């Protein structure tokens, strides 16, 4: 099996643009809806991050918290999340999906158990917000063995020495956190300064695909064209929340905003 994530990056490089990564929360605002959302936004997004909602999340801001609590309240379970991925892949076999969440859910499920089912339903990558290096070494190694991409995170606080160590143990995709913030904060520093830091890291490992996330919206996305990929999350969660309040169909709302985002980077 080819690595779909790598293929996606290869493709956008040929198109000379960054990859568009979306983040939506599984089960928000229902199992069925979140599957429909995935299907429709995948027409524009290159890689889909799917959040596993957790109720003691320590790195996510208001928008994603709201989505996560809504999904949990509506009864979403890990087994439903796997079902969503499986059903998605039935029609969109080639579109890479990355599950993103907190380590406790994996821990409770059992690491091996979790990875086996990920493999079975077609998960391509994993991001665990609170399993940093070196704590993640063993798990990352297990992912590698299963052909699942374990995505490490880098932050503005990460020292060069530490970056080098992390890069050494990382798979081919890496996530750079744009600024000191939870998800969904306002951009506190200029896109230019962010891209400077980004490029400094990029030089340390020109071959790996590094995406940027946290605080990026349709207003700023075009400033990050120089990156390998851009992640939009909170804006999507916020759009969903608004559409519910306004009794609009979240599927079409999200689909149109992702289309718009895509338009800004091609």
């Amino acid at each position, binding site marked *: 099996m080819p690595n779909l994530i790598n293929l996606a990056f290869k493709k956008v490089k040929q198109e000379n643009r960054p990859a568009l990564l979306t983040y939506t929360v599984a089960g928000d605002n229902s199992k069925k809806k979140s599957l429909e959302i995935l299907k429709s936004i995948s027409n524009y997004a290159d890689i889909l991050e799917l959040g596993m909602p*957790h*109720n*003691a*999340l*320590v*790195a*996510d*801001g208001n928008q994603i*918290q709201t989505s996560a*609590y809504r999904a*949990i309240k509506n009864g979403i*379970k*890990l087994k439903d999340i796997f079902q969503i991925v499986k059903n998605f892949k039935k029609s969109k076999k080639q579109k890479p999906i990355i599950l993103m969440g*907190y*380590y*406790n*859910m*994996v*821990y*409770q*499920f059992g690491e091996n158990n979790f990875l086996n089912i990920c493999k079975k339903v077609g998960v391509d990558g994993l991001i665990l*917000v*609170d*399993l*940093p*290096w*070196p*704590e993640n070494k063993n798990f990352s190694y297990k992912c590698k063995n299963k052909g699942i991409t374990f995505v*490490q*995170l*880098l*932050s*503005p*606080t*990460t*020292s060069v020495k*530490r970056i080098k160590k992390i890069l050494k143990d990382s798979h081919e995709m890496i996530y750079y*956190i744009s600024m*000191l*913030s*939870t998800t969904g*904060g306002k951009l506190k520093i200029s896109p230019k300064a962010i891209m400077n830091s980004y490029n400094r890291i990029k030089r340390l490992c020109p071959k790996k695909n590094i995406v940027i996330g946290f605080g990026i919206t349709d207003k700023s996305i075009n400033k990050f064209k120089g990156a390998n990929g851009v992640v939009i999350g909170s804006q999507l969660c916020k759009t969903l929340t608004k559409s519910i309040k306004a009794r609009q169909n979240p599927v079409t709302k999200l689909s149109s905003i992702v289309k718009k985002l895509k338009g800004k980077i091609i």
Partner: protein
Amino acid sequence: MKIKKGIPLIDQHDKNFMYGGKFGGNFIPETLKKPIDDLTKLFHKLRNDKGFLKERDYYFENYVGAPTPFIKLDNLTKHLKGAQIYAKVVSEANGGAHKIYNATVHCLLARRSGKKFVIGDTGAGYAGKMLSMAAKKFGLKCKIFMGAKDIKRQQPNVKAIKKNGAEVVPVYSGSQTLVDAVSECMRYWVANCNHAHMAVGSTVGPSIFVRICGWSTSQISRELKSQIIDEFGSMPKKIKLYNCVGGGSSSFGFWNEFMDYNRKQVEFIGVEAGGPTKSKKHAAPLTYGSKIGILHGAAQYVNQNSDGQIEETESISAGLDYPGVSPLHCFLKDVKRARYTAASDEDALEAYKLVTKYENLKPSLEPSHAFSVAIKEARKLSKDTIVIVNSCGDAHKDKDILEKRLGKKYAKFN
């Protein structure tokens, strides 16, 4: 898995900062790796620095008011006709609870690190009150995160925090109690770690906070040990140390100096919050066999469902109303150095009634949980057994709850 003698328990972790290979650690967002690393280095340096220790001791003595009294509860002892009952009245410390030790040390650390701004969580409001007090004393800005439910039920402490000039940030997510306050505080730190110093209010959170807090509250048992020897001439043959356990800072501090004694000579009894008798909910992960999970950066026993979602707790006592518990206590439970049990809301209220009936002492609802178990057991113990309860908080903060549950008579404070 075993406790090593002669080494402080807080230092008995492996290279990943785990106790017994299972509890604690640093399960944190990448952004926090550096500030935590910086704090770890600072703490390591200062705890071995004589100047800093002098400073700490100076403030413990002159600001906190060490040592807090160690008194015999004569009437209660006579009434129960069992063991000899004593209290370590930690609530006499400045601010009214043990939370002052950790708060003071954190402000001293913040000062040394050059930071001018401290943030912290609070449940019962004591951790927040003390952090705001110490911040004021040392000229630091302060912001306290507190669940909306706790803000309602612990008004006296909320008022004190505000009076100290700190901002109280209400947290509306989840169960609106301590667990959410800690999450929110950590989130705030993620976004502001370059200029804010974070203090966690108990022996929970990422490893360095567990260690700083345990190191700070250990002052209690350092005092107690010499007070016991003063009182009895030597260490009695049978001592039982009862303490309520929320996050575990008060109990850990109450026990630390006695760690190396045989557990038959000095027994540790931790009392968790069992919640209302008729409710399924509780805040007693050690008592009711909760599974190990990750919460607030550390592996610990924690109330959760099979999917790993943290479960809502329920307790009359805001200070104990937390679904997890210190990795140090998980370790003490697994190596069986301490015994853990729970008291219900109703048990705690009964104990409060009995203690205040017989003694000139008004323990807050947290230590009332400990008194409940101590009283039940003391009745059956022989008179050569020394029962000591850590009365680590004052009931004034609970006056609304006491009035509602027990009537006006029990809610008079002057």
